[in-house]
């Protein structure tokens, strides 16, 4: 069932062929929200890539303490209005330490996006390999891999990540560790989709025709299956990405994720959670950033899904049998 839900979510059932990249772009562009989201995501990626540059333009770095910018006597509240926002410190400074928030935020984007991206890639790679193997393999292989997938589905990401973080030595780099754990626990969705899609494709006549042509299994997988799997895998991956951002943020929020002084948004949020009265901007900045990033990625994911699977869009039109008329 979970499978059915997943498959439905990623719009996999559609046998609709994607007819070329240009029409995909056209359909993606047709949704204004998706375009805006894509721009936002692109900006965020740019910010992450250019973090040192941006901080350099501002003239700050994410680790330097500015004792003179906080009011020591009242617990370290930033001096000045709105958390110390000024020409030197574009988003103000961190309470207690006086570290520059803008620099921390842009460097934090690297961690948040980077970890999520690595985790997503890992999920996709494992998911595609397992899914393909299950879909193409014999009964035994399929059964075995499907059971493994079932077990992985039963592993709650947060719980496993928390557990794993408990036993892995502290000197193992946390960003890598989180990406690996999330990647290792979160591939079941992709593998289920790939398996289902492979099974469906395998029964399609053009695959049978390729067999009759005399091709071997590998070539058939590469020529006939993989291109058709790209659409659902990409769609699902784009939908997974924001989830992975949230997992990293959540782990850091719980204080078991990215370790200081490396800034990450979740950790900033966690540090800020007692400061909502004394320094509201300190809390709002990471909260808003997480929200915007995840929202933009989700909207983009929707857009990609709709563009890759025109059936979703047409589903919204409630035709009266026109489908039948036009078919054949």
């Amino acid at each position: 069932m979970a499978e059915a839900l997943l498959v439905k979510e990623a719009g996999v059932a559609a046998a609709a062929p994607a007819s070329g990249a240009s029409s995909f772009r056209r359909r993606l562009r047709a949704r204004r929200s998706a375009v805006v989201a894509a721009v936002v995501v692109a900006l965020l990626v740019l910010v992450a890539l250019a973090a040192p540059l941006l901080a350099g333009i501002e003239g700050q770095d994410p680790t330097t303490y500015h004792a003179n910018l906080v009011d020591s006597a009242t617990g370290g509240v930033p001096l000045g209005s709105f958390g110390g926002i000024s020409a030197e410190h574009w988003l103000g400074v961190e309470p207690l330490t006086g570290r520059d928030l803008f620099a921390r935020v842009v460097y934090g984007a690297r961690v948040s996006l980077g970890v999520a991206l690595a985790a997503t890639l890992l999920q996709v790679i494992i998911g595609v390999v397992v899914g393909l193997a299950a879909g193409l393999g014999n009964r035994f292989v399929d059964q075995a891999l499907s059971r493994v997938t079932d077990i992985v589905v039963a592993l709650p990401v947060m719980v496993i990540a928390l557990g794993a973080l408990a036993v892995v030595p502290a000197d193992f780099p946390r960003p890598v560790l989180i990406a690996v754990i999330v990647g290792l626990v979160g591939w079941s969705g992709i593998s289920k989709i790939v398996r289902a899609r492979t099974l469906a494709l395998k029964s399609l006549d053009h695959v049978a025709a390729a067999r009759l042509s005399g091709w071997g299994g590998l070539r058939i997988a590469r020529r006939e299956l993989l291109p058709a799997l790209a659409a659902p895998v990409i769609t699902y991956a784009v939908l997974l990405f924001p989830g992975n951002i949230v997992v990293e943020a959540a782990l850091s929020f719980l204080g078991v994720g990215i370790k200081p002084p490396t800034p990450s948004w979740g950790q900033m949020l966690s540090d800020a959670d007692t400061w909502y009265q004394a320094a509201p901007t300190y809390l709002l900045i990471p909260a808003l950033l997480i929200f915007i990033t995840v929202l933009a990625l989700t909207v983009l994911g929707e857009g990609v899904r709709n563009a890759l699977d025109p059936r979703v869009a047409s589903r919204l039109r409630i035709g009266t049998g026109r489908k039948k008329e036009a078919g054949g």
Partner: protein
Amino acid sequence: MTRFLLRRLGGALFVLLALSVVVYAAFYVAPGNVAQIACGPRCSPAQVAQVSDQLRLGDPLYVQYAHFLQGIFAGRDYSTGTGILHCQAPCLGRSYQDDQQVTQMILTKLPATASLAIGAFVLWILLGVGTGLLSVWRRGRATERILTGLTLAGMATPVFVVGLLLIIVFCSALQLLPFPDYVPLTENPEQWAWNLLLPWVSLALVSAAPYARMTRSSMLETLAEDHVRTFRAYGVSERGLVGRHALRGALGPVIALGALDIGSMFGGAVLTESLFNIPGVGRELVDAVKNVDLPVVVGLVLVTGFFVVLANAVADILQAMADRRVVLS
């Protein structure tokens, strides 16, 4: 149907067993000195030796695991040097750091988690299905677009962001609600509800979004199906179509997703519990992780896995009952 049921439950049992092997192996085999880790950092060599003995770390791995399993199904005894400590089935081990039985620890945390999960569940189902229904009912109008936007925003907001904002607004700025502090239902039902209101709402706000989407897309899908056209062609009103035929079609997936969600929720809504300071299973896990309390971590992961696997099976069965066609295929 019975066959399907048995097969599904059998499968769930298998997955659970396999899960226990994986978890046991991952936590008890991988890292360095297990006895030292399980016992806690301040243990003397003698105490570590005792723990090692109790966990039977000297035995081959499968024997250790067999004892672990035996504990779950039949209970086991721990020798403490001076006496015998009996751990009743289902025995998930002992926390040496807390000097308690893991099962007992989890059981005491379960009411808080259940309070959170069930209340939030009711709320988010109502909210999610209601939103989905409304956006289908008003499809093509501004209402639908607004609701769709809100749903997307809901999907995009992590619970800790929503929760923090709600605390700031309702507890701090407006001072309408108490700063959440869990009170057991048995102690004071009214206080219980008031203190859980914010956690419920936060969890419901973020969890409702997938339900709204699913309800909406399932209903739209059903509305586009031929049988709805049949009833439209027979003069059934739009309300009848949406309420009777389309909603019925959306029910299966919603029930299934609901069962899954509440299952994983019983494993602890880690974030919500941490944020709102609810002494539930999830917060226990975070604490255990921070203290590297190995037996507790393993026990909690297994219990969570148990609920998720159970929920998966229940979801499948409910889905099958809601949609008889699944059984046939």
